C-alpha cells in the first residue's frame, strides 16, 4: 500500500484499499451514527462490505451498553450486525479483568448496569452499582465497610458518580494489591447539540488523583481492544482497516496495532489536525496520522457497489 499518509481517499484508491483488507473495524459515535441518528449511507456501507465478503466489527469506548444492546441499536438503525461483532468497553473490561488481571474475586464497580451485566456474564461479581448517597461524618467515610472479596476497582461511565463512590474506590485502592482498571479516558460523551456531558475520563481522573495511582485503561487507544477482536476472529492486522473519527483514539489504535487507518470527518477530528500531526517531529503525534481520510464513510459506497 502507499507509504504516503493523510491522503484523501478517491474512488480508485478506495477500491485498492478495500481489496487489500479482509476486515473493517468501525468506531461508532461520529462514524456510523451520531447519538440516535445514522450517518446517511452508513448502513449501506456496512451491509455492502459484508456482501463483498469483508468481516465487519464495531469497536467503541462507550461503556453504557452491553454487546446485545448495541446489536439491538444497530439492528434498529438498519445495520446488519450481530452481538459478537461488537466490542464495547463494558464487554472488553470484563474480558480484561478475567483474562489479563486474572481476577479471582469481586470488583468494586463505578459504572452502568450494562457493565454489571457483562461482568456477571464472565463470572465476576460487581458491587456498588447504582446511587450511593452520603451519610454520616468524615471519619465514617474513611471507615466504610469494605467487602473483603473485592480485588479490583473498575471505573466506567456512571451518572450516579458521587463523593461517596469516589471515597469507596479510594478506600479499596489504598490496598496496593487491589487492581485498578478504567474503561476509557474520553473526556466528553459525544452528543448532539451544545451541552457538554463529562465523560468517563473525568471520573477516572478523580479516582486516580485521590488514590495517587494510575489505572490500567482498556479502551482505545490501548491495543487490548484490538487484541480482543483479533484473538476471537483470528485477524491479521495488516489486512485490517480501522475507521474512526478521532485521531487520539481510533487512529492511534490503528497505528499501534499495525492496521491501515481511515479518518472520517463526520465526528471530532479535522484534516488540519491530522496534517499538523504529520508535520510534527513528535513520534507520539506521528501515530495520530491516518493513511486516508474521507468526508463521510458514505464516500466509499461507489467503490463497494461497482
Amino acid at each position: 500500500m502507499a507509504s504516503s499518509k493523510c491522503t484523501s481517499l478517491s474512488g480508485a484508491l478506495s477500491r485498492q484499499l478495500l481489496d487489500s483488507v479482509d476486515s473493517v473495524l468501525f468506531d461508532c459515535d461520529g462514524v456510523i451514527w451520531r447519538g440516535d441518528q445514522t450517518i446517511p449511507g452508513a448502513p449501506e456501507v456496512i451491509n455492502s462490505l459484508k456482501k463483498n465478503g469483508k468481516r465487519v466489527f464495531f469497536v467503541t469506548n462507550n461503556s453504557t451498553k452491553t454487546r446485545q444492546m448495541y446489536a439491538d441499536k444497530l439492528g434498529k438503525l438498519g445495520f446488519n450486525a450481530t452481538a459478537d461483532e461488537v466490542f464495547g468497553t463494558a464487554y472488553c473490561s470484563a474480558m480484561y479483568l478475567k483474562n489479563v488481571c486474572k481476577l479471582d474475586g469481586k470488583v468494586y464497580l463505578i459504572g452502568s448496569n450494562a457493565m454489571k451485566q457483562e461482568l456477571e456474564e464472565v463470572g465476576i461479581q460487581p458491587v456498588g452499582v447504582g446511587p450511593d448517597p452520603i451519610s454520616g461524618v468524615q471519619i465514617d467515610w474513611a471507615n466504610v465497610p469494605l467487602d473483603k472479596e473485592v480485588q479490583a476497582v473498575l471505573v466506567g461511565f456512571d451518572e450516579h458518580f458521587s463523593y461517596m463512590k469516589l471515597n469507596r474506590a479510594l478506600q479499596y485502592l489504598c490496598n496496593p494489591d487491589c487492581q485498578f482498571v478504567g474503561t476509557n479516558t474520553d473526556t466528553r460523551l459525544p452528543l448532539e447539540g451544545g451541552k457538554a456531558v463529562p465523560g468517563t475520563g473525568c471520573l477516572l481522573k478523580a479516582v486516580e488523583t485521590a488514590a495517587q495511582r494510575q489505572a490500567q485503561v482498556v479502551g482505545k487507544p490501548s491495543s487490548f481492544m484490538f487484541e480482543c477482536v483479533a484473538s476471537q476472529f483470528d485477524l491479521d492486522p495488516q489486512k485490517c482497516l480501522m475507521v474512526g473519527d478521532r485521531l487520539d483514539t481510533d487512529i492511534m489504535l490503528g497505528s499501534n496495532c499495525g492496521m491501515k487507518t481511515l479518518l472520517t470527518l463526520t465526528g471530532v477530528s479535522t484534516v488540519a489536525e491530522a496534517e499538523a500531526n504529520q508535520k510534527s517531529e513528535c513520534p507520539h503525534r506521528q501515530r495520530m496520522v491516518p493513511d486516508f481520510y474521507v468526508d463521510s464513510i458514505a464516500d466509499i459506497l461507489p467503490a463497494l457497489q461497482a
Partner: protein
Amino acid sequence: MAGAVGGGRGCVTLRGAQIRDLLDSKHNVLFDCDGVIWNGEAAVTGAPEVVSLLKQRGKRVFFVTNNCTRPRENYVQKFSRLGFTDVAEEEIFSSAYCSAAYLRDVARLQGKVFVIGCSGVMKELQDAGVPVLEEDEAADREPGISIYNYPLDPDVKAVLVGYDENFTFMKLAKASCYLMNSECLFLATDPDPWHPLRGGRITPGSGSLTAALETASSRKATVIGKPSRFMFECIASQFDLDPDRSLMVGDRLETDILFGSNCGLSTVLTLTGVSTLEEAHRYRDSEEPGQKDCVPDYVVESVADFLEALEE
C-alpha cells in the same frame, strides 16, 4: 535563609539553641493546622503552649490551612476547644476564606458563583458578600431534567470547586457547562488529592474533584490554597508581612513547604503529620528541577520541640 541553591541542602534537624536563634530572626510564624498543631480533635502535645509563648515573645502567629470544611468562626471554636487560648479569627486563613476574598477583592466578581463545595465554603462566601447560585436540588428532580438537559443561570460568572461531600455527576456537568464560556472564572480552593483523618485513614480531597472538572472543561483552575502564593498575599495585604522575617511550619512537603519556598519564607517540616523525613530526603537528593522547592530548610519531630527554646 530560604531558597538557597546547591544540591543536598536543607532538612537540617533543629535542636534547642538553633531553634532559639531561628525564632529570634523571625517576627511572623505561619502554622499549618492538620498534622502540625492538631490531629483531628487532639492537639499535638505542647502545641497550645508553643503558640502562647510565641505571642508572649512578641511574635505574630498565623494559621494557614487548605482545609475548607469550616468557616473561620468554627475554627476559633476548635482552637478554644483544643486548649489554644486567644486565637483570634483574624489570625486564621483557610482556603475557603481566601477563595471568598479572591472573588471579592481580586476578581471583583460581578455576578454569581457556581459552587461545588461544602458548608464551610458557602459560609465564607456569604460572609464576604459574594453572591452564590443557590443549589436547587428539587429542580434537578423535575421531569425532563437530567445530566443531558438542565437549565443554566446566565448570571454565573465564576465556578469555585472545593471539598464537597455532596458532589454529584450533575454538579460536574453543570460546572463544566458554565466553564465552556472562557470568561467564566475557574477557581479551586486547594489542590490536596486526599485529606488525612484519624488513625492513618484518608478521604478524597478537593484536588480529586478539581481534577474531574479540569478534565471535563479542558481548563486549568486557579488554585487559591497552598502551594499557590495567594494565601500569603491575602495575609500580607492585611498584616504587612516581610517574607525574610517569616517562618512557615508545616507537615506536607508538596503544599506547606512548597508554599513557603514560593513565598520566600524559611520553612520547617514537622513530622507529626503527612510527610516523612525519607520523603524530604528524596526531594533533596532528586535531580529533577522544581523538586528542590519541596525541601524544608529545617526539620523538627514536633512543634513541641520549640518549647525548649521558648521557655528559657
